């Protein structure tokens, strides 16, 4: 009898262990599968053209060379110009940083008003903003082009910033509004009785509580704006193109031999900032979630 129980618990222990390891192995295989394209990109970017032509796609580089990276950064050809991704990369920085900050700040104020300073028609305005999130990019291209022309911002980085801010407000407002409805309204009431006004309550009570949602919104907005291609290609001209458009031009320039290593290096360079934001801000995101408990 006792033997039976003993062996039964033993088999269940073995079964549990097998299940656990099976799970790990499965997850490991999935991870490998997902990492494969990145592996191919990184290895290809470190090979010379000769090696790419003669070797296998999956093989590690025999001689590691960063030549493709330096070409991609400073001398690859986008159409007729051959100055690499560098100028466009800075265009994207000049575009994304202000656009993210402005749209996030406006979203914070909008969300604060809609969640904590109720006014007649607040629900309608919020619904309309929400609706704005669902309008496809393509629909606004033509009217937006006309607007930018009228405002004298056509083809400029300022114009692109404007487009991204306008398009982003719907999302940022939604994020902040949904976060602020979870903050007890009694806090705002208490501050009002204490004598604080609209902006003081925002600065001293609400914003210090908002780190987690700022991180979420910044990640979202930065990814959207940095990776955007359609607005970039539609509303920019030769000197103001963002990095995504330049990447497209490098890859599609079909003069002579296709330089796969340069293409791969360019794609990685263009993707690095979003990767960086996830790694850096993701940590704050988790920290913010655990430390920001309002009710305690």
């Amino acid at each position, binding site marked *: 009898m006792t033997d039976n129980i003993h062996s039964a618990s033993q088999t269940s222990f073995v079964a549990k262990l097998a299940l656990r390891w099976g799970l790990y192995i499965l997850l490991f295989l999935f991870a490998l599968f997902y990492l494969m394209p990145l592996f191919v990109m990184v290895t290809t970017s470190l090979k010379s053209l000769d090696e790419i032509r003669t070797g296998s796609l999956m093989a590690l580089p025999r001689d590691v060379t960063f030549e493709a990276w330096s070409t991609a950064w400073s001398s690859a050809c986008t159409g007729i110009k051959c100055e690499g991704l560098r100028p466009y990369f800075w265009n994207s920085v000049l575009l994304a940083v202000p656009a993210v900050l402005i749209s996030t700040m406006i979203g914070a104020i909008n969300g604060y008003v809609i969640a904590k300073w109720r006014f007649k028609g607040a629900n309608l305005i919020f619904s309309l903003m929400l609706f704005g999130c669902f309008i496809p990019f393509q629909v606004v291209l033509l009217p937006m082009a006309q607007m930018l022309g009228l405002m004298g911002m056509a083809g400029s980085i300022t114009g692109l910033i404007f487009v991204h801010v306008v398009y982003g407000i719907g999302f940022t407002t939604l994020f902040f509004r949904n976060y602020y409805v979870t903050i*007890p309204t*009694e*806090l705002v*009431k*208490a*501050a*009002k*009785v*204490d*004598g*604080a*006004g609209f902006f*003081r309550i925002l600065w*001293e*009570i609400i914003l*210090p*509580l908002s780190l987690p949602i700022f991180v979420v919104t910044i990640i979202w907005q930065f990814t959207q704006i940095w990776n955007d291609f359609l607005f970039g290609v539609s509303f920019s001209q030769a000197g103001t193109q963002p990095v995504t458009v330049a990447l497209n031009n490098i890859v599609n320039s079909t003069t002579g031999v296709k330089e796969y290593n340069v293409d791969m290096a360019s794609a990685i360079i263009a993707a690095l900032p979003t990767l960086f934001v996830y790694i850096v801000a993701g940590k704050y995101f988790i920290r913010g979630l655990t430390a920001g*408990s*309002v*009710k*305690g």
Partner: protein
Amino acid sequence: MAPILEIKNLYKNYGSLNILKDVNVSIGSGDFLVLVGPSGCGKSTLLNCIAGLEPISGGSIEIAGQDMTHVSPKNRNIAMVFQSYALYPTMTVAKNITFGLKVRGVEKAEQDTKLAEVARQLQIQPLLSRRPAQLSGGQRQRVAMGRALVRDPKLFLFDEPLSNLDAKLRVEMRTEIKKLHQNLGASMVYVTHDQIEAMTLATKIVVMKGGVVQQIGTPAEIYSTPSNLFVADFMGSPAMNLIPAKAKKNGTGYNIVIERAGGEPLVLHDRRIKKLPSNVVVGLRPEDIGDAQYRKGRDLHVSSCKVGVVEPAGADTFVLMSLGGKEVTARLHAETGAIPGKEMKFAFDMKKLSYFDADTGDRLELQ
């Protein structure tokens, strides 16, 4: 002396929904006014209206002789303690308490003096550098009170401040609020759904139901002469016995006839009454029905009733019996000899009887 708070004909509507109807309340300096009623009766809304956090739809509000009807909360010279305490989570206790002073541009040195004074008064000196999340419920409660006290306002508003505390702490804090009121001589308006809190704290009680004031009076008035069946039932624990009965003229006064299932009706003779309709509801507090063995006196009517259930509660023993088709509670001494199912002699205190109109529920005056 001018009243510290005077509310006249106050109405509050949300769209077509009436939340408050024709509220008139006035309190003097040093009064402790308690707004009490079941949830949804509009008591918290009324408090928010007094604070200026909710605009009102009609009527006026005066604080310390000044019309405050359309004045913003910060200029009403009030301080408020909220149910959830509403402490600013990112600020230390000290910053929480002095925030109102800082906003009003009070000098740093004066802020510190006032903070030290309040911290001493509430015994929260060791907590000043902590954040709200590091405090227990009772400590947060003290800090919330400190934030109100430090401003030295004309009127304190409390919105169910004890309802988030456990039972033991609630009783302790209740006593402390009462002490605070006595020491400061401040004027306070306090919202609660707990009728015991209302009775123990108030100098004046407003009983509300469905946005309408049912009765305003001292705790003793509310307790002994409730103005209608709702107040009679709501205030007091266990609740007042409300027994349907027939009234019949009999010499100098009335006979009150209460039916009993399977027995002779109980007949009480009340000499005080001049006029009464034939259908009434008799109100009698549990403590006004005694054990005839221990209760002697002139105005007692002694009658034998069958004991239903006996519930010992330590200091008292509650005895339930059936009268007029209702469960009637009597509050007896702990050493009573009541035995379930046995007949026993009860003494009804005839001075304490209240009468209500069976149709309208309103109190019937004796003269």
